[in-house]
């Protein structure tokens, strides 16, 4: 057997066959501990879901309407979701300070789920036990598929997640404002092709629930619009090194790169693109998921003219005169894409509570929402329509470009 080589400055731990009292670990122990560590870290990204919750829809009591919010205030998307939550709470506080909803005060139970499905499940079970009227304010695509079975069983409406949940759309308790990210991107592609010409497309996705369906939507949209679909790449959220994916894209010379990622992952991959001197020939296309400062602040100025994203809410640059802007300012919350969305979402929730007939219960809120036909429930969202069979309320989307480091409206999709 070949003798072990030793580096010039390697320290040998044992040469004398005298047993040492000093603590020493075997490699086997290290392996075991590494696996323990791996499990600990992996546990942070595991998803679990579970049904079974008590209750069949809840009601307001003692002049209080309780809403549950499970949202990532920390973790991988905390920088986007935390400000959104602050904005929602600011609007609800404003509602309370101006008399509440039909005299009832709103009680908001906000719980951090750190962008973890299991944490969101724990929070949601607590909401069910608490008999909240509705759960709202979620932000992210990992948690909704885990939360939805609990809320569906409990008859609690799940209102307006800022995220994608393609498996939730058949649930009667699931309501969302914006179309699924896949739908947004599929609508954006023909619009972009018409504007800048057909071309070849690569899509990068964060490996979140529903990502495969979104990729499929994009692939179909590209083909239907006369483009060429080159490749799709998927990365776990929080991937440390995006350079290999950038190098693969660079080798394909795509005209368009579609980013279906968390804003943080999109920021990291865009930074890697800049570091590798790579940009798509024509555009970087994203959905509402990245129409926010967390992404834009990490985009190099040279890429700004290529960025095109969809959004269901107004651009902050166009919202200066809204009531949201003044409420946020009074609350010390900076006006941005996500805070505007948070405030607007809270406005829609408030309107739904106001429209509930009789006492405010989970079922009366659902009935009220299903009766909406072109209701302008928020100044930052387009008119909203729900039916018993369609629980996606917004059918038109803004298209944003970037000018002077800010998102500006450059077009509109849908009705």
């Amino acid at each position, binding site marked *: 057997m070949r003798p072990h080589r030793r580096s010039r400055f390697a320290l040998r*731990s044992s040469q004398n066959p005298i047993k040492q009292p000093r603590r020493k670990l075997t*490699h086997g122990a290290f392996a075991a501990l590494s696996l323990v560590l791996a499990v600990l870290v992996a546990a942070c990204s595991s998803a679990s879901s579970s049904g079974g919750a008590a209750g069949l829809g809840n009601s307001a009591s003692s002049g209080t309407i309780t809403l549950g919010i499970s949202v990532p205030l920390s973790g991988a998307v905390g920088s986007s979701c935390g400000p959104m939550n602050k904005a929602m709470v600011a609007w609800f506080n404003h509602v309370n300070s101006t008399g509440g909803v039909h005299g009832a005060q709103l009680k908001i139970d906000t719980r951090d789920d750190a962008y973890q499905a299991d944490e969101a499940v724990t929070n949601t079970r607590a909401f069910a036990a608490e008999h909240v009227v509705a759960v709202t304010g979620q932000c992210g695509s990992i948690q909704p598929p885990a939360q939805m079975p609990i809320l569906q069983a409990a008859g609690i409406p799940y209102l307006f997640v800022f995220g994608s949940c393609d498996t939730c759309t058949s649930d009667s308790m699931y309501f969302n404002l914006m179309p699924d990210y896949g739908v947004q991107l599929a609508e954006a592609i023909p619009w972009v092709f018409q504007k800048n010409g057909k071309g070849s497309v690569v899509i990068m996705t964060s490996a979140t629930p529903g990502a495969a369906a979104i990729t499929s939507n994009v692939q179909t949209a590209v083909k239907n619009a006369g483009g060429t679909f080159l490749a799709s790449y998927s990365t776990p959220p929080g991937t440390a*090194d995006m350079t290999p994916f950038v*190098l693969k894209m660079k080798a394909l010379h795509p005209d368009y790169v579609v980013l279906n990622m968390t804003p943080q992952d999109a920021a*990291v991959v865009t930074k890697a693109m800049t570091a590798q001197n790579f940009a798509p020939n024509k555009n970087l296309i994203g959905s509402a998921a990245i129409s926010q400062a967390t992404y834009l602040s990490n985009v190099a100025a040279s890429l700004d003219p290529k960025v095109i994203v969809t959004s269901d809410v107004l651009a902050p640059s166009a919202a200066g005169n809204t009531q949201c802007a003044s409420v946020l300012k009074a609350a010390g919350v900076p006006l941005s894409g996500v805070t505007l969305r948070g405030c607007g979402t809270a406005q829609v929730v408030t309107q739904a509570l106001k429209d509930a007939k009789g006492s405010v219960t989970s079922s009366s809120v659902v009935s009220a929402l299903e009766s909406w036909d072109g209701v302008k429930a928020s100044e930052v969202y387009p008119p909203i329509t729900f039916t018993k069979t369609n629980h996606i309320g917004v059918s038109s989307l803004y298209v944003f470009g970037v000018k002077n480091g800010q998102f500006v409206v450059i077009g509109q999709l849908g009705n």
Partner: protein
Amino acid sequence: MDLAISVVVSGIAIGLLIGLLSFVLVFLNKTTGIANFAIGNIGMFEAFIVYELFLSGLNIWVAVLLGLVISMAIGALIYHVVMRPFSRGAANLLVRTVGLYLLLAAMADVFFGQNQPYTFPNMLPQGGISLGSAVISWSDLITVAIVLVVAALFVAMFRFTELGVQFQAVAQRAAIAQLLGLRVRRLSMIAYIIAAPLALIVALLIAPSELLSSSMMDSLLLYAFAAAVVGGFSSLVGTFVGGIIIGVVIDLVATYVGGDLSLAAALAIMLLTLAARPNGLFGVPQVERL
């Protein structure tokens, strides 16, 4: 082929960072007898302190220098508060390091985590040198330089300083070194004072490209651990070789197999190494008298 070369170059760059963290892990293992699994999060926590100093209005370089000084104090504090009391039993101490790992992540979430991840200011020059279709960024080249400087400093310390000789003595025969009058606990504390700023340097090199968050070091720590095992847990130079191997493999796997399998590939290499070559590529067998 051009793509493969580019990916290998990129893998070497990330591999050196992995190697540097692995180096810190092994250095602590050799000088204190315990590999501190919290070392990644120690660097993360210190990077948050630097960021807070920067936000308070300090120039980023001043913030970094202050951060390095603070990190030395943190290293000493961790040794005295977490590692030193009743320090008997390797399992006990290892569990402490895992506890510290979780505690630091939780504390970072509480104190700094409200709006994470944060955009960390770029400290190094942008751009780089083209090599085929790949670009070797200046930050990657500076990482290489930092790794070389750190390695050279450690070689010099071990060879030419009394402290280095004492570290070697402790690493080889802690009990005998203690009997001969070496202050082993003092040396362990110094090891932490050296390791904590190194962990900060790794975190500072990563933060600008990967954003600053409480989980920013998690995957890197696992890769560093795998690199340490591949290189041989007793070899400091092996950590860099192991880091480069892991870095190149994870990038090749991400490119040609799928990004989801990068971590699995690194752990598989680690397990295969343990099975086929238990002491790693550069490690030495540990012989004990029964």
